[in-house]
């Protein structure tokens, strides 16, 4: 029965990456305190990767994983204490393994020398200082090599009952193969039970109706026997009982106790389903209730393979399908708001059915909104997907810099759109590196400053008024404002006469080409970074700013929309046009008080806002719209914030706020400066969504000099 495995390759790869992540995070936890269950988790992840890669014929992976597994097994059995050396080595191995798995996708062969080198190191550790010397590794690649405690025990008799369940063949398992594996362990007699066999008419040849009972005489331990059945599906019932003296029997049952916490279906249910009739349970000399705990353990092994899948009942769906759904719901929202407008017109005309129509429309609106919220929810993932890499990153970087850092992650379960999540990863890495490199001081410097030697780096995420806010704070030295200002004057970004607020100075580091690092390091200091970070975040429709206190540390705050598909917008009228301003960037909308707006040569008009002079952008002039309000006192000024500075947008009137579905202009046209996209309003008209940072840049270019308005005050 040969099967084309290629279609499962993607699933396998994904499971590999998941396994690698489990291993990595598990290994990082080993640093702190050692729980053997943690080692077990890592071991099982490695084991799954080994089994999977062997099934696909990726021998280089299975062989390498095998060596890792041997070391892990020593750790989990307590034969070897968990120490820094082995954890580091295993982490390095996880990296290599990840490269190997990635290599499968790209058809690139990993660096053989590195793999071989690492493997030698692993083998050296495995062979080293084990008093008993019993763990001499078997030839790699075989499938039953994980020695467990008791595997070298005395020869014992085992009774094994296997009720594989109807699905066995469909899951790709072969009972004969299992029995052959068993036979390799020792002397074996097998009896087939056909009492579950239905009448010929009801027989489904693709289902397994048989069960088996085996007696095995072997020196192998229970774990080793159990491993043979590790790949059986959830339905399968495997009972293993020691047929020897009761002392041994208890020992064998001690194992299942650990696994009792694992979720598992009640054994009895599974049994009756599996065979059709209540099966005779052969349990000579075995301790009470052997079936239950044993079954749980069998399921426990399986549960580890996909705990998330089974508990939450999740399915894998391609992102295209979800996006199509989101688009369709977007259309529905637009149609619904069109209908609402028509409904409002009809109500004005009156008529007996108008009321009923309106009720129906209100219902439709509610349902549409709920549908949209829930559909968008599909794309939401917890931010932990982006945060997960940081424990490792911080550990590696702080080690290489000789700094002591405690990383604190909070709000990891905060959910955010997948696209946002993917695109925020790199900026976050950069900011964390920056904080480690420039923010936090060396232990000596910290001691001298009267702080604890260990620095603290905190990453937090939370929802705030429809946005996600990510903060990266350190308790380091804070920004050196003098140095920043000097550099900014040197670069001509500000002039010497300018009096800048502390906040403005701090946020100068987001300007292009800005780096105050005295020397260029591996990590940061090349001056390409903070501006890229800012641009990436702006591209996502978000904002970033930094707040710093000298000697106490800095906090970078990133504010992002929850999703890129819809936007909370403020509708504004300019002449005959309607524009949409992202609510995220609006600080305040106000009427200009006479005397507060002035015209400054070369800068255009300015407005005094909270003691600061801000430029006024007349949208009608910038966009060439006719028929807009000319008199500043008759329209409205919408104060927006971008890059830590305020700007006033002058509009005729505000029309209301609504969630709009974002449509890209690039689909059929191209990107426009100052416009981030378009949407379709309830009346069917297209309205442009303003890109505030782009708009401000466009404005500054048009008046040909940076509006450093502090100078005129």
């Amino acid at each position, binding site marked *: 029965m040969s099967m084309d495995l290629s279609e499962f390759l993607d699933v396998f790869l994904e499971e590999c990456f998941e396994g690698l992540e489990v291993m990595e995070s598990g290994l990082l936890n080993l640093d702190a305190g050692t729980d053997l269950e943690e080692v077990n988790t890592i071991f099982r992840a490695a084991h799954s990767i080994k089994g999977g890669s062997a099934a696909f014929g990726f021998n280089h992976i299975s062989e390498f994983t095998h060596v890792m597994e041997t070391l892990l097994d020593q750790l989990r059995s307590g034969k070897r204490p968990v120490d820094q050396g082995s954890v580091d080595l295993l982490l390095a191995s996880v990296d290599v393994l990840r490269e190997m798995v990635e290599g499968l996708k790209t058809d690139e062969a990993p660096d053989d020398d590195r793999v071989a080198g690492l493997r030698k190191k692993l083998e050296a550790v495995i062979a080293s200082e084990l008093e008993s010397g019993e763990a001499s590794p078997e030839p790699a690649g075989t499938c039953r090599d994980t020695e467990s405690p008791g595997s070298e025990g005395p020869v014992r008799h085992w009774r094994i009952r296997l009720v594989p369940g109807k699905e066995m063949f469909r899951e790709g398992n072969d009972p004969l193969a299992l029995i052959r594996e068993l036979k390799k362990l020792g002397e074996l007699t097998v009896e087939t039970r056909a009492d579950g066999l239905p009448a010929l008419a009801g027989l489904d040849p693709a289902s397994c109706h048989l069960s088996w009972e085996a007696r095995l005489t072997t020196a192998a331990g229970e774990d080793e026997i159990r491993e043979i059945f590790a790949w059986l599906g959830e339905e399968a019932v495997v009972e293993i009982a020691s047929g020897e003296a009761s002392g041994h029997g208890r020992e064998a049952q001690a194992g299942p106790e650990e696994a009792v916490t694992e979720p598992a279906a009640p054994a009895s249910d599974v049994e009756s389903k599996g065979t059709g009739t209540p099966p005779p349970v052969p349990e000579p000399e075995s301790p009470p209730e052997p079936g239950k705990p044993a079954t749980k353990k069998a399921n426990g092994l399986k549960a580890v393979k996909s705990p998330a899948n089974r508990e939450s009942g999740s399915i894998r769906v391609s992102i295209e399908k979800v996006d199509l759904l989101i688009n369709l719901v977007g259309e529905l929202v637009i149609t619904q708001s069109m209908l609402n407008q028509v409904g409002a017109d009809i109500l004005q005309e009156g008529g007996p059915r108008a009321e009923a129509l309106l009720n129906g429309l209100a219902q439709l609106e509610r349902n549409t909104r709920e549908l949209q919220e829930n559909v968008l929810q599909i794309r939401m993932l917890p931010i932990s997907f982006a945060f997960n890499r940081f424990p490792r990153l911080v550990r590696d970087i702080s080690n290489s810099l000789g700094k002591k850092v405690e990383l604190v992650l909070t709000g990891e379960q905060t959910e955010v759109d997948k696209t946002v999540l993917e695109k925020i990863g790199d900026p976050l890495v950069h900011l964390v590196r920056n904080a480690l490199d420039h923010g936090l001081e060396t232990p000596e410097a910290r001691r001298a400053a009267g702080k604890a030697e260990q620095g603290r780096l905190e990453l937090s995420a939370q929802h705030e008024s429809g946005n996600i806010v990510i903060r990266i704070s350190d308790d380091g030295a804070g920004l050196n404002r003098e140095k920043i200002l000097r550099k900014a004057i040197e670069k001509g970004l500000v002039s010497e006469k300018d009096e800048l607020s502390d906040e403005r100075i701090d946020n100068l580091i987001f300007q292009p080409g800005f780096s105050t690092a005295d020397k260029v390091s591996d990590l940061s200091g090349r001056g390409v970074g903070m501006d890229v970070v800012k641009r990436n975040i702006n591209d996502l429709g978000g904002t970033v700013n930094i707040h710093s206190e000298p000697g106490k540390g800095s906090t970078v705050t990133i504010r992002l929309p929850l999703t890129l598909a819809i936007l909370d917008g403020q509708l504004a009228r300019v002449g005959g046009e309607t524009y949409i301003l992202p609510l995220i960037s609006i600080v305040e909308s106000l009427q200009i008080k006479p005397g507060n707006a002035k015209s400054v040569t070369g800068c255009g008009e300015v407005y005094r806002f909270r003691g600061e002079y801000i430029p006024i952008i007349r949208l009608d002039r910038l966009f060439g719209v006719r028929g807009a309000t000319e008199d500043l006192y008759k329209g409205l000024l919408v104060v927006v914030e971008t890059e830590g500075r305020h700007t006033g947008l002058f509009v005729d009137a505000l029309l209301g706020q609504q969630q709009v579905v974002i449509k890209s202009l690039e689909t059929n046209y191209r990107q426009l400066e100052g416009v981030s996209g*378009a949407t379709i309003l309830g009346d069917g008209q297209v309205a*442009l969504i303003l890109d505030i940072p782009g708009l401000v840049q466009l404005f500054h270019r048009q008046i040909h000099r940076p509006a450093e308005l502090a100078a005129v005050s």
Partner: protein
Amino acid sequence: MTTSNAFKIDSDLQAELGANQYLTFFLGGEEYGVNILKVQEIKGWTDVTPMPNTPDPVLGVINLRGTVVPIVELRSYFNLPKAARGATTVIIVVKVEDGRGGTRTLGMVVDSVSEVHNIPGDEIQPPPIGEENDRGVIEGLATVGERMIILLDIDDLMINGVLGLARKTAEIHE
């Protein structure tokens, strides 16, 4: 598999039938033609949302059943005098290939549509060099009855002329 095959047969058939068919329209008294396979639909004049800082011929965007579609004023593109929108003014929506494997949907405003002509390839003459309106977007000239029809390479006009996107020249004539 079967659906894409069916689709292929369908589009082959269409190509065979429509390859030589041109939709003609009037613009400033001249008759122009575009390959009918490029035409997605013809719709009446609707209000356009202007876009800031775009070239003059780009009037703005409209909502075409949920898609945001840019609208090009063809008179302005050909430097013809402006004309009032009349009862016959229509928007021809075309689907053009952007030369990168994608397509874009744009609309063009014309004075009025005329008819559909069958013009075999050997009846199309190359445009005379130095022609006033020659911007490299003219596929050729054809004569139907006594009338001359200017056949436009609409892919080139929209992608290079209007959008300013680079396009492989090899693909222009199909």
